[in-house]
């Protein structure tokens, strides 16, 4: 049978194309535009080639925030993934408590990001905040607005509070999909609790955990609102992560060229790491 070619059908995809163009391609191209030009206002632009890129890549300030970013993301993954799995394992599989647990777990995810930042800001204030007050009362000097270590501790704790639930929910979904027969067979085979985790639960959770780690990597790598509201990147530059640095460069200092080049490097890095990570995780599956 001959296929009917109807070129008018292309008009049908036009709305989508327009939508994608306006929300993705055009803004992205604007950024590309800025990243290779110099402007002195009055809508005058001069082509600068890769100068901004060189400048960003050689700048100690970028190196420092990049290092902070990797440290933050690394810590987040190291804490949230094992903790999330542990919480998911501890949650009941059936009964009335399942709903209670799920609602409790979803709550942090439903709170707007800047509210989380504001909440923790007040919560951690050394004089009137419950957390800050209690820590100081225990004899530990704690002030997230003046001590870098306190600031890091608070930022990480806040992220753990906000996002571990996501890992929990995904891991839990993986756990409940394991048929009872697996646990029964493990009992018959005399498997220990650890073996059940190692040989049944972990392999069955692998797919969802891959997704969870990918999401947590991307989100924490791009984290902005919460640390911005909590510490504003300080004290000094102690919690200035890439996105905060980027906004400082673009809106604070109005270095549009630098900021645009940085955005593109930032974007490519997120893309690259995500791709590497995903490829590694799925490749080991294909081998297995």
């Amino acid at each position, binding site marked *: 049978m001959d296929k009917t070619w109807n070129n008018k059908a292309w008009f049908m995809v036009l709305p989508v194309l327009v939508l994608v163009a306006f929300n993705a391609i055009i803004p992205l191209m604007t950024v590309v535009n800025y990243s290779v030009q110099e402007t002195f206002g009055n809508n005058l632009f001069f082509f600068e080639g890769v100068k901004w890129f060189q400048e960003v890549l050689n700048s100690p300030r970028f190196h420092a925030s990049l290092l902070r970013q990797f440290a933050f993301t690394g810590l987040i993954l190291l804490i949230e993934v094992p903790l999330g799995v542990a919480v998911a394992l501890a949650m009941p599989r059936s009964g009335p408590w399942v709903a209670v647990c799920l609602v409790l777990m979803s709550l942090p995810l439903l709170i707007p990001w800047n509210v989380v930042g504001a909440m923790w800001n007040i919560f951690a204030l050394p004089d009137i905040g419950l957390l800050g007050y209690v820590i100081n009362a225990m004899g530990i000097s704690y002030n997230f607005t003046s001590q870098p270590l306190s600031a890091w501790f608070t930022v990480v704790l806040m992220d753990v509070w906000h996002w571990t639930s996501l890992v929990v929910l995904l891991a839990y979904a993986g756990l409940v999909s394991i048929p009872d027969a697996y646990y029964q067979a493990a*009992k*018959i085979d005399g498997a220990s609790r650890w073996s059940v985790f190692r040989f049944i639960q972990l392999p069955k959770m692998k797919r969802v955990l891959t997704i969870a780690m990918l999401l947590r990597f991307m989100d924490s790598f791009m984290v902005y609102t919460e640390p911005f509201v909590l510490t504003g990147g300080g004290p000094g530059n102690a919690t200035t992560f890439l996105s905060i640095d980027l906004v400082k460069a673009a809106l604070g200092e109005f270095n549009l060229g630098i900021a645009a080049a940085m955005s593109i490097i930032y974007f490519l890095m997120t893309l690259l790491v995500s791709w590497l990570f995903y490829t590694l995780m799925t490749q080991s599956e294909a081998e297995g």
Partner: protein
Amino acid sequence: MARIDCNHIRHAYGPHPKSDKDYALKEVHHAFEDGGAYALLGPSGCGKTTLLNIISGLLYPSHGELLFDGKDVTNLSTQERNIAQVFQFPVIYDTMTVYDNLAFPLRNRGVPEPDVDRKVRETLEMTGLADMAKRKARGLTADQKQKISLGRGLVRSDVNAILFDEPLTVIDPHMKWVLRSQLKQLHRRFGFTMVYVTHDQTEALTFAENVVVMYEGEIVQIGSPAELFERPKHTFVGYFIGSPGMNVMPVAVEGRSARLGSQTIELPGAPKAGITGAIELGIRPEYVRLGASGMPVSIRKVEDIGRHKVVRASFEGRDIAAIVGEDEDIPADPKIAFDPAGINIYADSWRVEMGG
């Protein structure tokens, strides 16, 4: 190897069973002899898997006790009972090789590695998995996976019993025969006590020396395949075993004869006096003789199924099935007679003994 006694075992899944309806297992009082091969046969939801899980310790019964060789194991864990069980759907450890899968139950029990190796190799040979021992268990076919599951059940030679929960459901028909005969061979060779749950009568009758038929949470009959066929104790056994199942029709019994509509049927003996309830006469299609003399029937359909024909007919307004030989002719004016040897009388579905 052990003898397994189920003493008045009842089980309800809900916490507060009130009536008989709440019990998945009403009352099972039965002994599985040491070294016996048993099949638990019954329709889905009759309690056979419940009974199996109670024996293996995956479930603890609400009432009653379980003895292995006279020792009370009712409250012991699965591990302490030392039981092997194979499930309906293959359970394999994806990340391990086939070899490690089979070694898993042994290593968990701290068996020394040389013994593990010897036992695993034997089992690999037995199940025909020897040439894929080094492969990851993931990505094997369903019947290879189920063979691994079977293998994990067979690898421990010191188990008290091996329980099978419809293990061949996912296996191709031709492999079913192979695996089933392998299991029978294993049973003959090693004398394991085996309990095999199935809803497939062919599987039950070919596998086991003793078939335990369950219906609605109760054991309705235990016997050899021949006993189940000739003398079903309960009309359910009559329906469930045999193809087609037993003809069961309501009758009125007077002495040595039963009356059905305008017909009177001679019984082989007089049922003991004073039976009450719904009286029924059961006769297997194999004992219904179709010929030129006897009681008139009208034939509705003849199914030729190879070795014989199944005649579906109407008798006194009720459906009746009869089996006739492949070469026999169906008479133009069909009449049926019942072979007295195949007549059973039931009161409220339970078989009534007949005196001579």
